């Protein structure tokens, strides 16, 4: 039976009650897009496996569940958040804690970090920087047959806003800890906007943690504008329990001479789908997309990447690696698109996966779509096991089979981890991965939830 009409029906009910729900204290800048977005969602529907981008991802288990809708946190909700403390040692960052994608001091207005970067909720941003928000909001998100993006545009009420004005440089990375905590099963939608203006720099670390055992489903849309000569880095560390679903859509729009990198490290999560769009809109821009996932049990981890070369002389790389064990399944769907005038493009894409068990599976779809002739594009994909020669090499030097396998797998994963620009975090993740590979960490680090 198709579960989708029922879910769509519930969402429509929600939409019809918008006057007292979603629209309540929501700024006009966001509201103006909602009606059209919702009808767009109704047209596209919840993606099923007939949708090319979701061919290998079945959303039924996550979406079919009956959730409470989550719009605005109540004041009491943040007590948990305030107690949370990130356990990564020596991590020198500006720390911020979000609850279910919402900013705790939403009504207090934006805060300015040393160095001049503004942080706060989307609602506050609409009040404080209306013209800036108007200029960038909903300008980079693309639907491309994915109904979940317009769904977010129609229903999301708040989220995170980050703004680095011209030539500001953040002295430390900004860490956003997004806690999932609730007493009910919830479906949360948050909408984020990051603006890095010309010559500015921002480094962002987003950690997702589930701290209560309820079912969660998050549908996140993040739009990022990277101005001329600006630099933006985002690292996502996803640590959620296996009853949670996390769907992210990140749209990174880059102007000329800019640099951006995205790094998705997925350690745990029932269903995780990270979609990252990189649009290179000006000459000489550079972009990197990395991803690593370690999946076991019945997890499903999907990475979707699209790099859009719309201007000449740009470089891009994609590197995605995954280790799949037990009944886990993984999917990689990457596309490099080189537009007509984007000559002198260099674009590379690589996806490698290791399958550890008979019941794990991996589906890959690396794609190239090229309309310019003076380009160098390549992609490579492998699915297989550890190299027997390498194993033999290690074993012939007296390293036992288990340890040798571990070393090789660690090396395999480290290829992605080494691209994390924050040293303390890099070490921490290396550590987590190693523990995970050793089987010492079948749950999220410091987890109190006994999920399956």
């Amino acid at each position, binding site marked *: 039976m198709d579960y989708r009409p029922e879910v769509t029906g519930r969402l429509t009910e929600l939409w019809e009650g918008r006057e007292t729900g979603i629209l309540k204290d929501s700024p006009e800048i966001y509201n103006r897009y909602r009606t059209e977005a919702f009808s767009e969602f109704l047209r596209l529907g919840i993606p099923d496996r007939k949708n090319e981008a979701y061919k290998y991802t079945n959303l039924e288990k996550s979406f079919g569940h009956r959730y409470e809708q989550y719009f605005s946190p109540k004041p009491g909700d943040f007590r948990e958040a305030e107690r949370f403390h990130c356990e990564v040692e020596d991590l020198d960052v500006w720390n911020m804690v979000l609850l279910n994608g919402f900013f705790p001091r939403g009504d207090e207005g934006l805060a300015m970090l040393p160095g001049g970067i503004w942080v706060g909720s989307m609602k506050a941003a609409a009040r404080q920087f209306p013209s800036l928000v108007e200029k960038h909001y909903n300008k980079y998100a693309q639907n491309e047959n994915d109904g979940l993006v317009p769904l977010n545009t129609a229903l999301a009420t708040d989220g995170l806003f980050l703004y680095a004005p011209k030539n500001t440089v953040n002295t430390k990375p900004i860490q956003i800890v997004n806690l999932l905590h609730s007493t009910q099963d919830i479906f949360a939608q948050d909408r984020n906007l990051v603006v890095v203006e010309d010559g500015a720099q921002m480094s962002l670390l987003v950690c997702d943690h589930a701290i209560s055992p309820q079912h969660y489903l998050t549908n996140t849309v993040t739009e990022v504008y990277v101005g001329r000569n600006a630099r933006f880095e985002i690292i996502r560390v996803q640590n959620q329990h296996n009853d949670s679903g996390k769907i992210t859509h990140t749209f990174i729009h880059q102007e000329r001479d800019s640099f951006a990198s995205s790094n998705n490290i997925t350690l745990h999560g029932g269903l995780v789908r990270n979609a990252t769009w990189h649009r290179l809109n000006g000459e000489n821009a550079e972009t990197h997309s990395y991803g690593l996932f370690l999946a076991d049990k019945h997890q499903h981890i999907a990475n979707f990447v699209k790099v859009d070369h719309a201007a000449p002389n740009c470089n891009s790389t994609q590197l995605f690696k995954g280790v799949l064990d037990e009944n886990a399944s993984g999917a990689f769907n990457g596309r490099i698109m080189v537009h007509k005038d984007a*000559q002198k493009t260099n674009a590379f894409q690589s996806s490698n996966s290791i*399958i550890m068990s008979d019941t794990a599976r991996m589906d890959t779809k690396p794609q190239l779509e090229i309309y310019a002739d003076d380009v160098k*594009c390549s*992609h*490579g994909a492998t699915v297989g*096991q550890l190299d027997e020669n390498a194993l033999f090499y290690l074993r012939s030097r007296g390293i036992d089979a288990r340890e040798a396998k571990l070393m090789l797998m660690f090396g395999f994963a480290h290829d992605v981890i080494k691209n994390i620009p924050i040293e303390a975090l890099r070490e921490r993740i290396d550590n987590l991965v190693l523990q995970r590979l050793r089987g010492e960490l079948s749950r999220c680090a410091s987890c109190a939830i006994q999920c399956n």
Partner: protein
Amino acid sequence: MEKDQDKLLGEVTSGEYKYGFVTDIETEIIPKGLSEDVVRLISSKKEEPGWMLEFRLKAFRHWQTMKMPKWAHLNIPEIDFQDIIYYAAPKQKKGPDSLSDVDPELLKTFDKLGIPLEEQKRLTGVAVDAVMDSVSVKTTFRETLAEMGIIFCSFSEAVKEHPTLVQKYLASVVPYTDNFFATLNSAVFSDGSFCYIPKGVRCPMELSTYFRINASNTGQFERTLLIADEDAYVSYLEGCTAPMRDENQLHAAVVEIVAERGAEVKYSTVQNWYPGDKEGKGGIFNFVTKRGICKGDDSKISWTQVETGSAITWKYPSCILRGNNSTGEFYSVAVTNNYQQADTGTKMIHIGRNTKSTIVSKGISAGFGQNSYRGLVKVLGKAEGARNFSQCDSLLLGDKCGAHTFPYIEVDNPSAIVEHEATTSRIGEDQIFYCNQRGISTEDAIGLIVNGYAREVINKLPMEFAVEAQKLLQISLEGSVG
């Protein structure tokens, strides 16, 4: 050698499509349109037994419930299926017993195309089944082959003379419900080639089918069924041409291959349907379903294709590797020039243990051509030790064309090793400069480089085809420099 090259150069510079003539021959056609009556009419014209008509009607009824698929990376103008003539046959006396019975106009046509229909030309050593407007005209060397137990004849003859074999294998690889065009073909196919190689026989010559569309407003729907019984071997060639017309003509064929235990089938295609003119007007829509099954252990199917013609090419010659240790291969060169479009590739479905597949695809785009590789490598849970290697390279000549790669890799077994590599680039200026420096013109240099680039695939073709393919490549790319 030098002379050969001069000749080649002459051909290259003379350019356009040289098979574009129309043969003035009396053709028997039925009215335009498609309905159950038309299906019945085709069947009765071919004097088919009841089971064949049943099969056609089943397919037709299913086809009516289907819609034309839209997923390909192609821009296909709306096709009016009621505006096509579904049956056209060169008029001739029933059953030509010898070559002298065949219409001399027809013979001239095939002479012009360089197809040896006369059995005296033994030296060429190729047995030909010539199909014109989807009716088999003449099959050569039948008797010689029959001595070894090989059946090589037109499909309609096979239906009459070997009904048990046809019934056993027809639609066993491509079921009538398979896809829109295969279903349409199942309903209205008019003829094609049938070939059966008995146990342990190694077919001594290349078998070949030559397809020719002649009549206007017609669609060509032929069906080829190739069966290699245990330990048999056959190498099969397929060539095609069509006249130049302003309209688009539909060609929707089905090819089925069955390889039993230890059998090996090599299927080569040089596809040169009329590609349309420089403005993209006219040309053939080549929407073909080709699939082979390695049914028994240790069997092997190898597809080689050189695709230079057709306005739109949309096909995926595939292998189902069911037998243990079976092997599937796919070698392809696809050229799109002017406004040609191609969405082609393969499917390798690994079911048996230790199955191997190799995919080598070379795409060349020039002018406004759009060239896509789309391929599936699927390893099922039980396919222990499956191995695949895929390589897809694209070459871009010009800044208005496109080259795209859409591989699908689905792996459900941990012991499988699947590799995919793809590159896209253009011909290096340094390479052209190197040739120019040595007195080779830019056009020739490109021809040289393209041939080198495609060599890996062309080497897989039988000798006669390889020469033709090389020439074709250069002609197809004529005028694309600059």
